[in-house]
């Protein structure tokens, strides 16, 4: 009889103690960091908002965090995917906001604990703590992430060194009227033209971006460059005006910032690194604020991609006024985007978040519902500073061109992905 009871007890213990998974430990770590900022616990109603491109992962993590916070004795804990204004209006005293992203083989949650008040005497929202938790991706976490879909034909990436050039923008187009496209890059002070000689990129021309100094600049320089119908227009935030030149022509100052494949000219907002949609002419279809925007050249339909200052990628298919935008949170994106139309289909390329000490990745997504990942170039030798698309090698098929810079080594490579 005693032995039977012993077996029953062991069985009960085995079934009761489920093994703790990676996501449980991840939730524990988040709650551990948030806990000091959630006091006095019994007086607080807390909302938990988890955002990320993987709904099931977000749901499960939110549920685990909510359960743990309830265990701390908080007055109430609720899942609610709204912003601070919503949470304040809904009567919460704290909002725990988390954004999920994946990079360098790790799942990362970054966010904040916001204290909310409706008092007219204090500021409505106060950041009590910034949270950051990460864990390596294992089988459990990888099961949450979408599978990579590979369209016909294999993608490949290769790098070509171009020296110590701190590129901020790229475009591909025929800048000298010879019928072949060149790569044109812009730094904070100059524009450089490279041509493909069959094996490498050779420098063809260098133009100084001089002129009146900009009255206000962003803290980190911003530049754009566009090659359109034989004319190159480059603009750096160090200067008030852009510089434009035609084949072998003299450069002349022009106004505004242009973007590849986008028939609009915009202005930087004073002192910051984003463009205001309202400053663009024409402004139709552009986000209220954006770091960068690119349009599809040579595609069967119009398409445009922009990254806003929260790091969210917005893709608009068809005519801007009629087609809905597809938002995708790609936190940590270095604000680089390019669109490419090839015989394999239409794609949007972005630079993706990285881990400390690790390099950026270039992620190519098909312009289809859900933006499935078509290709991912990891292990690049630095951060992706600029992206563009065009037929660089003259084989009739466009490539994605990325300026990859290792800041410590002061070395830049142009990577071609096709």
């Amino acid at each position, binding site marked *: 009889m005693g032995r039977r009871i012993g077996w029953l007890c062991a069985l009960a213990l085995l079934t009761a103690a489920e093994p703790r998974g990676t996501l449980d430990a991840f939730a524990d770590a988040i709650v551990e960091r948030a806990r000091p900022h959630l006091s006095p616990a019994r007086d607080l109603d807390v909302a938990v908002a988890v955002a990320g491109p993987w709904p099931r992962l977000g749901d499960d993590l939110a549920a685990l965090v909510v359960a743990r916070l309830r265990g701390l004795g908080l007055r109430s804990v609720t899942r609610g995917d709204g912003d601070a204004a919503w949470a304040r209006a809904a009567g919460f005293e704290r909002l725990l906001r988390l954004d999920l992203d994946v990079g360098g083989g790790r799942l990362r949650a970054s966010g904040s604990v916001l204290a909310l008040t409706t008092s007219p005497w204090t500021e409505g929202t106060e950041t009590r703590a910034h949270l950051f938790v990460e864990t390596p991706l294992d089988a459990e976490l990888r099961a949450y992430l979408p599978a990579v879909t590979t369209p016909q034909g294999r993608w490949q990436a290769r790098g070509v060194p171009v020296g110590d050039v701190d590129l901020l923008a790229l475009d591909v187009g025929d800048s000298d009227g010879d019928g072949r496209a060149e790569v044109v890059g812009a730094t904070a002070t100059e524009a450089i033209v490279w041509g493909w000689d069959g094996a490498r990129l050779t420098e063809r021309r260098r133009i100084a971006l001089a002129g009146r*100094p900009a009255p206000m600049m962003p*803290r*980190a320089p911003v530049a754009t460059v566009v090659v359109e119908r034989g004319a190159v227009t480059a603009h750096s935030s160090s200067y008030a005006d852009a510089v434009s030149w035609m084949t072998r022509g003299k450069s002349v100052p022009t106004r505004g910032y242009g973007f590849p494949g986008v028939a609009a000219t915009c202005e930087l907002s004073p*002192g910051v690194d984003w463009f205001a949609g309202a400053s663009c002419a024409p402004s139709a279809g552009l986000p209220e604020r954006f770091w960068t925007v690119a349009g599809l050249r040579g595609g069967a339909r119009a398409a445009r991609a922009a990254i806003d200052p929260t*790091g969210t990628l917005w893709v608009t298919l068809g005519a801007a006024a009629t087609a809905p935008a597809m938002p995708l949170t790609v936190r*940590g994106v270095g604000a680089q985007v390019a669109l490419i139309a090839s015989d394999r289909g239409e794609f949007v390329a972005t630079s993706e978040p990285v881990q400390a000490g690790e390099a950026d990745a270039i992620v190519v997504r098909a312009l289809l519902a859900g933006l499935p990942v078509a290709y991912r170039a990891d292990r690049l030798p630095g951060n992706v500073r600029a992206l563009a698309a065009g037929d660089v090698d003259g084989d009739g098929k466009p490539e994605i061109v990325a300026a990859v810079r290792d800041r410590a080594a002061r070395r830049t490579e142009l990577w071609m992905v096709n």
Partner: protein
Amino acid sequence: MRATLLLASIVMVATAVGTRARAETRAQYGGAVQAAMASAPTTFDPLRGGPGDAEVAALVFDTPFVIAADGKPRPSLALALDNADGATRARLTLRPDVRFSDGTLLTARDVAASLARALRDPAGWTLAPVKSVRAVAEETVELELSRPTPELALLLATPAAAVTPAGAAPGKRPIGSGPFVVDGGDGAGVRLSANPGCFAGRAYLQSLALRAFAARSDEAGSYEVGSIQAARHTTGALDATGPRRAAIVVDGPQTLTGFVAVGRIADADVVRRVLALAINRERLRRLTVREPASVVKAPYDPGRAKSEAERRWHDARPKLSLLVDGSRFDDRDVAERILADLARAGIDVAIDAVDASTYQARADAGRYDLLLGTVAAPAGDAALGTLALVAAADPAAARAALQRAPAAAVNLDDTRVVPLFVRAARLYVAPELRDLAVEGAGRAVWSDAHWLSR
């Protein structure tokens, strides 16, 4: 004994390039940070104050040039400097449309008046080669030089060249053109917010509160519980067990020199000699300095120090006080070690730890027997750093030296200063706070710091 202390050679390890956490993401605007100061705030005047004040002044005021990451001067308020080889007249062209945080235009008159104030003030010794300055147009300043000054751009990057409206000394709510504006402050800290009109770009952080702490453990504990996001000190206990909260260590270059200055007291030269021989610098560095540091090479001979003291004072042990800024924990630790070394040499020293304001006032007035301090190399330049040591006890001597020739190696035996070690400024930074660097003069560069996400 003639130990020629060529600090410049010791500081060879130092570069003006600050270390910086690697940027992986594009910076986003917004968020608040609380952080520890290097010393308690005493003034907003860029010509005065301690290391904490210097950090705040660099955030609020601009200079014609700044030191870039490669250690070279880069135009900031200036657009160009016309300073021909061998010329004793230079022209500074300013950026147009730069505004102070109150919206008024920053003109050549403001720059000329600010430089002129520094020329009159002993603390403005880094501008010594400049004889006079005047605004000759709305955006042009003319400088008359006492000698050809090839290093003029570097000198115009030092705190003495900071520009204030009409060159006036800042009051309680200073107006500058820098990336931050002062919202308020008291003896324990300063509250700043981003200056949206800064010509060099809005700072990424919306607000920044810099605090001074009463004790090392308070500061380290505040970091541990997340009340501050950047600390300058940890405790010995945490060093041993490891911090509970992760931190990125950001070290600046080794350009901060710890020193003891001898005041205008009787037998100052003997006291200086005894001090120089009696202090075990290597032990001092090992036991009190946690940051990367090099010891100033000088003979350590406690026996000779003792015999020198006995020869001069016989059995009557002199009693001196060592003035220490109580808000600098490092200095308090160093003072205790020095005390022991000097007691063995036959000099009784009492530590006179005072608040930062009193320390500054007494240091400026020379009211001390011995003074323990730290000087930063102006503009991160090692040669200027050596002269800064001279200036710590005698600004007029530093001014005279720089007036004659560019800063170079100085024989500190002829001064009242005993250098001890050259160390880096160290910050313990929350991992989610990115791109916080420490520049050549040991100040945290808050204008480029940003949160990983909001």
